[in-house]
């Protein structure tokens, strides 16, 4: 694929690399440049529309509302980076399954304590990821079809678990995920933990190998890389991150809402493609997905602040996804030629 011709600087974790270039040059070379500029523009527009948005007292709730978007975007980035047509459409249903399990099963059955429920939910998320990964790697099925089928199954499970909306009693621990954990905003903690783990991984060989697998799986295989293990690992990580997103989502909405599944899959893909991650694999990273998700969040906020009816939100999501894909296609084409 075309991505193999890129200079090695593009394979970094989104850190401005390449000492030979000046800062400006290296900033413009990053895959996430466009989304970062978009975020800056939208932030300015938001400030004009509603001056108080950045007041410190709003930070916890702002970050809490942002966290589910960013986390599903992170979740769907990893399988895409792994290449081979890798994609995880099932992140939305995985997040809503977590949400439904928490609201309709764990809390009503007295298993709502964070020490019990979080490990259980993470286990479920990892299990869905293992199924996705095994079917892709050893079943040799197309990731699109596999994750679409798990999309069906997982969203069906969520509907079974919670046919109607089940609310949570106020004062439960998930509220602090969308508010404050100790002195820190909950959203900062959930996003920060993932970002730290990513930074840690980017210091090791693991992430570089994932990029190599994504850029050219056959070459990586002949160099002795266990391609299947990396692919399965990417789907498991995706399942775990989608679960964290589901917990963050529960903190915000406080009820079970299985119908949100397609929206979150869509937002995740839109954020990833706006963030400059190539859908062909091997290029991009979490930084881009972060900016992409923030851009979508800010746009939705801007629409609300300027009095646009909420019925426009779905239209806006759709347009953003199409725009993101066109953009990601245009930039990867420009790099090739």
């Amino acid at each position, binding site marked *: 694929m075309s991505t193999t011709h890129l200079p090695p600087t593009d394979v970094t974790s989104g850190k401005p690399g390449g000492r030979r270039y000046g800062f400006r040059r290296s900033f413009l070379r990053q895959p996430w440049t466009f989304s970062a500029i978009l975020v800056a523009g939208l932030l300015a527009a938001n400030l004009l529309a509603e001056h108080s948005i950045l007041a410190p007292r709003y930070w916890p709730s702002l970050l809490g509302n942002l966290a589910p978007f960013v986390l599903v975007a992170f979740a769907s980035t990893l399988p895409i980076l792994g290449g*081979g*047509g890798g*994609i995880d*459409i099932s992140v939305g249903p995985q997040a809503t399954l977590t949400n439904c399990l928490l609201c309709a099963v764990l809390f009503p059955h007295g298993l709502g304590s964070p020490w019990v429920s979080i490990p259980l939910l993470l286990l479920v998320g990892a299990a869905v990821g293992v199924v996705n990964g095994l*079917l892709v790697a050893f*079943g*040799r*099925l*197309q990731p*699109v*079809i*596999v994750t*679409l*089928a*798990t*999309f*069906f*199954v*997982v*969203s*069906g*499970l*969520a*509907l*079974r678990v919670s*046919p109607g909306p089940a609310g949570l009693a106020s004062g439960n621990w998930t509220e602090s995920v969308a508010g404050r954990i100790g002195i820190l905003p909950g959203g900062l903690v959930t996003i920060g933990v993932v970002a730290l783990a990513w930074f840690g991984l980017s210091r090791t060989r693991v992430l570089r190998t994932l990029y190599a697998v994504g850029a050219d*799986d*056959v070459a990586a*295989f*002949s160099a002795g890389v266990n*391609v*299947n293990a990396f692919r399965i690992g990417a789907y498991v990580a995706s399942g775990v991150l989608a679960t964290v997103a589901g917990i963050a989502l529960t903190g915000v909405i406080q009820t079970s809402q299985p119908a949100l599944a*397609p929206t979150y*899959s*869509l937002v995740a*893909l*839109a954020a990833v*493609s706006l963030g400059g991650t190539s*859908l*062909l694999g091997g290029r991009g990273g979490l930084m881009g997905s972060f900016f992409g998700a923030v851009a979508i969040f800010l746009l939705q906020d801007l629409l609300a602040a300027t009095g646009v*009816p909420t*019925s*426009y*939100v*779905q*239209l*806006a*999501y*759709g*347009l*953003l*996804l*199409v725009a*993101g*894909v*066109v953009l*990601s*296609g*245009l930039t990867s*084409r420009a790099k090739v030629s």
Partner: protein
Amino acid sequence: MTDLVSSTVTPPTAASGREPNAGRLARPAALVRRFPIIQMVVLVAVYAWGSVRLEGFSSASSLRAMSVLAALLALASLGQTLVILIGGLDLAVPGYITVGAVAAAQLGGDRHWPLWLVCAFTVAVCGLAGAAIGAICHLLRVQSLVVSLGMSSVLIGGVVVATNATTLGIPPASLSSLSAVMSTTFGIPAPPVVVVTIGLVAATWLFLSHTVTGRRLYATGANPLAAEEILIPTGRIRIGVFAFGAAFTGLVGILIAGFSSGASVSTGDPYFYSGLAAVLVGGTALGAAQGDFLRTVLGALTLTGLTTILSGAGLGEGDTRILYGVAIILVVLAYGRGRRLRDRL
């Protein structure tokens, strides 16, 4: 889009040629590939199971009702079938159906537009959306899945904005007779949608197997690079197939509004799950350019039978989705496996 998908799937002939006992298995394997024999056996098995389990399952009236449901499902998946044949995937099917159904209810029912104008409007809106998907996928080489997912949201979001999520009118009564269970077609004792579906099975077979354009469609799906090398206009094929599929699915949306005597912004949602399942369970494989509309009809009949049996046993919407997902995985494991990495060196 397509080069991603098709390059990882073994061409069917190469696969069977490598097997040690290819000589003995070649004839039955070729027959199974050419004719949907397994699908028919599964279909007969499902209906046999149904008539044993449920009383009145094989009565004339219940078979008629199921044939209408299956016909609507198959018609709604015709566009998807063609798109999958050329190696794409169209997740905007619920969007097209919603546009058609809401247009029938709102424009045809409330504002009394004549039916042809409603149809023309639907064809224009959905056709443009489909053409846009095809063009973006072709020019930028991106996966049609992602673009069509976005387009679906644009279409449904557009419908929400246009109707302001108010209650919608009832589509004109003339539409309902097309899909009413007890209606007849020019004296034939079958509802018009069923007759149309049977006619389309023959028409799509003639088109796909016996016209140049039809063969080009298969060639584009089997190997887009090779197709371009032999001067097949793959861009025109992709844009045309997506646009036709979208416009046709939109028209089926009008029929669906007539069948259910109403429409809402979520009318198309069930077809997101069942439509794709019908195509894939029917045995049209993504990225291998194998399949036709007959297989989709068989898939739709099988799924309609299965859901009738299972809803008789008290299974709900959630269970149906789980069933579709599992069925897709099983079927794809049977036909659609890719090559090993060590074979791609």
